[in-house]
Structures are given as structure tokens and as C-alpha cells.
């Protein structure tokens, strides 16, 4: 759509700008302040330059949680995106079951995140939880509070449970928006099921799938509440992801400088990846 040039449109954006800026810029400046200063209490601050940044970037603790974070996010994307697309492809396109499927699938998305953690805690308890009991009954030793591998398995499974529906809903939206004409053309060419997927459905879903991957990347990269409630970052530090580590440093140990420097590095990383996704998305939109 061709848009009119009109700078008065700024007045319509103003309320949004004021509210978001109030919430974003003031706190962000506070964080930047802390990240370059040293304090010994009594509200006395001294300029420290990039000392905290150097300290964070060289600390093995930060490297470890960063590595865990990337492993977690990568694993989540690898499982949730293909699974979500598969479920969306198998869903009926019309009829009474569509609403039922949509409602039931959206349910996990609307449960408060700490309730998700608490629910999975109860579900996975080795002696009285369904999941833990069944796995142990199959002869596999499983206890997410003491074995790192079990903890990882539970945290990943919980995230798949919690968020795959978002990918399903988005992929489904992409699928139902494909006009019938495309399928008719495929029928004339005698296309196989696979080529219909590869050359019609996948390209048409590209946009929504990019949105889905962007959202899943951002949210899994800042995941905090669910693993915190489920495992508390343990056993040991096995499931201490970036956010958990950050909150530990900021509110637990009150290492303001370290926490602030970490926040900024963290935010910049999220921003960089999201910017890449965003550019990719707007480019593909411009192409068609």
C-alpha cells in the first residue's frame, strides 16, 4: 500500500512512545550506569570504565551459562519447529474439530509460567508423579532433582509441552491462508504429497515460520521462571541458564556491576540475533 507522507502521524504514536520509553529508557540507563561504576554502599559510585565487562567476558561462570543457554535454545528450536509444522499439517482445515483443536492446544500458552514449572514438578516427581513413575517403572533410573541428564530431559520436554502449540498455531495460520488455486495447479501437474509440501506449503509458510522462530528464539533465550521453579537451576548448575544466572547475581548476590554488565551483553546478543531475523523477514516480504 502506498502511504502518504504525514509527520503529524507522530501525534498518534506519541502515547505509545511515552509509555514504552518510560519503561524502557529509564531502566536501561540505570543498567548502563551500574555497568560502568563501582559502589561501596551509601549510594557512592565511582566510574570504572569497562572493568565489569572484561570481568564478565572472562569469567568461566558466564561462559558456562552462555553455553547452556545456546544448547537449550538450539535444542528447543530443533524439536519444536519441525514438530509444530508436522502437527499443523495433520490438523483438519475446516469443520467442528478445528475450534476444539485450537482451544485445547492454546491451553498451555495461557498457564502462568511458574504454574507450568510447579505442574511439571508434580508431574515428574519420581515416586508420585506420572512421568517420573512411568520412566522409573520402565527400569530407567530417573530423578530430575539429582541427575543432570534427567533435569535436562525434563526442562526440554516441559518447554516442548509449553510452547510447541505456538508454532502449531502460526504454521496452521500460514497453511489455511494458501488459496485453493495453488492446490489445483499442483493437481494438474500431478504433484506428489512431498512436492506439494516442499514447493507450495513450505514457501507460503516461510513468513509465519520466521515469526515463529523469532518468537521461540527470543523467549527461550530469556527463559527464567519455568526452569527456575522446576529445578532451581540445579542439580548443581546443570540447568542454570543466562536469566537464572543474572537474577542470582543481581538480586541474590547484589553484584550490581557484574549483573548490569551481564544484562547489557545479554540484551545486545538477543538484539543482534533478532535484528538478523527481522532483516531476513522484511527482505522476504519485499521480494513477495
Amino acid at each position, binding site marked *: 500500500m502506498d*502511504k*502518504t*507522507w504525514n*509527520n503529524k*502521524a*507522530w501525534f*498518534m504514536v506519541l*502515547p*505509545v512512545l511515552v*509509555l514504552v520509553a*518510560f*519503561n*524502557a529508557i*529509564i531502566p*536501561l540507563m*540505570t543498567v548502563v550506569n551500574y555497568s560502568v561504576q563501582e559502589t561501596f554502599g551509601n549510594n557512592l559510585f565511582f566510574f570504572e570504565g569497562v572493568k565489569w565487562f572484561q570481568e564478565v567476558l572472562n569469567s568461566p561462570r558466564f561462559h558456562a551459562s552462555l553455553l547452556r543457554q545456546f544448547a537449550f535454545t538450539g535444542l528447543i528450536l530443533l524439536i519444536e519447529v519441525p514438530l509444530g509444522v508436522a*502437527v499443523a499439517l*495433520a490438523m*483438519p482445515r475446516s469443520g467442528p474439530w478445528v475450534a476444539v*483443536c*485450537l*482451544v485445547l492446544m492454546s*491451553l498451555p*500458552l*495461557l*498457564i*502462568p*509460567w*511458574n*504454574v507450568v514449572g*510447579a*505442574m*511439571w514438578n*508434580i508431574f515428574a516427581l519420581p*515416586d*508420585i508423579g*506420572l512421568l517420573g*513413575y512411568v520412566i522409573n517403572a520402565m527400569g530407567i533410573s530417573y530423578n530430575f532433582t539429582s541427575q543432570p541428564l534427567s533435569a535436562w530431559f525434563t526442562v526440554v520436554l516441559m518447554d516442548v*509441552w509449553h510452547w510447541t*502449540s505456538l508454532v502449531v*498455531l502460526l504454521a*496452521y*495460520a500460514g497453511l*489455511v491462508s494458501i488459496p485453493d488455486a495453488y492446490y489445483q495447479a499442483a*493437481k494438474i501437474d*500431478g*504433484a506428489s504429497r512431498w512436492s*506439494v509440501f516442499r514447493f507450495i506449503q513450505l514457501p507460503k509458510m516461510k513468513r509465519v515460520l520466521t515469526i515463529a522462530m523469532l*518468537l521461540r528464539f*527470543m523467549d527461550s*533465550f*530469556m527463559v*527464567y521462571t519455568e526452569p527456575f521453579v522446576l529445578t532451581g537451576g540445579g542439580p548443581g548448575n546443570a540447568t542454570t541458564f*543466562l536469566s537464572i544466572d543474572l537474577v542470582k547475581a543481581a*538480586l541474590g548476590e547484589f553484584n550490581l556491576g557484574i549483573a548490569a554488565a551481564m*544484562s547489557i551483553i545479554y540484551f545486545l546478543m*538477543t*538484539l543482534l540475533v*533478532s535484528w538478523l531475523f*527481522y532483516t531476513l523477514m522484511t527482505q522476504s516480504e519485499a521480494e513477495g
Partner: protein
Amino acid sequence: MTSVKEGLGDKRGDVLMREQTTPPPASNAAGLRSASVMSGRGREARFLWLVPTVYIIFLMLPIYWLLNMSFKTTNEILGGFSLWPRSFTVASYVEILTNPVWYNGYISSISYVFINTAISVSVALPAAYAFSRYRFLGDKHLFFWLLTNRMAPPAVFALPFYQLYSAINLFDTPWAVALAHCLFNIPLAVWILEGFMSGVPKEIDETAFIDGYSWPRFFVKIFMPLIASGIGVTAFFCFMFSWVELLLAKTLTSVAAKPIAAVMTRTASTSGYELGLLAAAGVLTIVPGAIVIWFVRNYIAKGFALGRV
């Protein structure tokens, strides 16, 4: 029917099977024409419904387990594993609905979620209109900057938010949480609404202005009804993200405005291991979400059909 043919096992059966694996173009095409036909035809398609069914069962299992636990007595829970409550009790629910600490948690959660949804949608409406209809100085940068706030990890903002809202005397009120949640809900609302508004032809605006409508009157009387489903979807997403967020809500409240989710965490840690109570509180936090989904289910399908989230 297919299985009967396969079961023959003789030469004729083999031929039939080969025919099925490489069906003639006509039958394949008929299956592709529309999805409702597709789900009824073809060997693979006949079992297609299994995939969503298994997936939904997987989704329901933990929820069932929570329900199961919420109806058990503490003794039974600690007594061992059982698939359904043997001594059925609603004591946990009674405790929650009669104890003010518990039900005040629900009231404060619901109040900040509603305040937030109202603020987010009402300020996002004109902004989304501006983004969808006009070009102005710095519009693209502004749009991306708004989106970046959706990307900021709440953990980064927890401490500064605490200081900021203490400084303006809003700490421990629903308003603090509602305003703080604007950080990620307003950008989202603008993003969704902009998509819906761009789907409305510009000629409608122009015709209305020629007919002598002022902008506010046009916007409320003509434009908003046109994007009603978009507003529904937006409100749903604002509700959802505000309802499920806990880190900021917990940081910005202490006693008076404590959200239900935070009351739960405290119960889990202080009063021992009252799993039944915890489970019942969990079940009750699922209820508002379920009600909201049920009301907007058709809007959701429509909103998603427009390819926007």
C-alpha cells in the same frame, strides 16, 4: 477397506497395493483439492487425525495430573502413586476460596491484567493506524525500536523497575505491574493491530473523509468495527502475556498487590510441601485462561487466518 485388500496377499492383492502406492493423478488430485476432502482420502491421510490427537493427549497429561493431585488429601499424595483420587476431597479448593491471602492474589492478578490490556489496546490503536497509513520521519526505526522492547529479557529490567516504581510511589499497586507489562505488550499490540489495519483498503478512509467524517468519529464509528476481530486477537494476546508473566509482577509487589502466582511460590517454600493446595491453586489459574480462549476461539481462528500474530 484398504486393509482387507492388503490382507489378500495373492497376486491380485499385490497389484491392488501397487495401485495404491502410485495412485493415478486424478484420485491424487481430488485428494488435494481441499483439506476436508484430503483428510478423508488416501492411505496416509486416513491416519492423519492421529497426529493432533496424540499431541493433544500429551498436552493434557500434566494438566490431568494437576487436577488429580488437587482432589487428593495430603495423606494420599504422600502415601504413594495412584492414577485417580481414592479419597476424593475438595478441601484444597475450599481453603483457597475462603482464605483472603489466596483469593486476594486472584483479585490483584486479574485487576492488573485488565488494566494492562485496556491501556495497551487503547494506546496501540492510534499508533498502529499511523504506522499502517502514513509515512513519517523515523517511522521504520521507531517500529523496530518498539519491537526490541519485546526482546528485552525481563530479568534485565527487574532491579531497575523496582527502583523506578518505588521512586514514583507505585510500588505494590496493580498499576505498577500494569504499567511495567506495557513494556512488552504495547509493542506486541501495535504489531498485531498494524497487520489487521493494513488489510483494510485505504479507499474506505478516503470515502469517509469525503463524506465529512472527522478522524475520531471515523475511527470509532467505521474503522474499529472493521477490525473488531483484530482488536479481539490483540486483547487476547495482551491478556495472555500479562497473565503468565511472573518475574516483574513478583518484583513490583510485596503484600497488597501480590499476584496469585507469587502467593503460590511462597506457599511452596514456607508451609512445607502442601502439594494438594498448590495443585488446586494451579488449576484455578488455568480457569481464567480457558474461559478467555473459549470466548475468542473464533476470533483466534480468523486472526490467525490473516497470517498475523
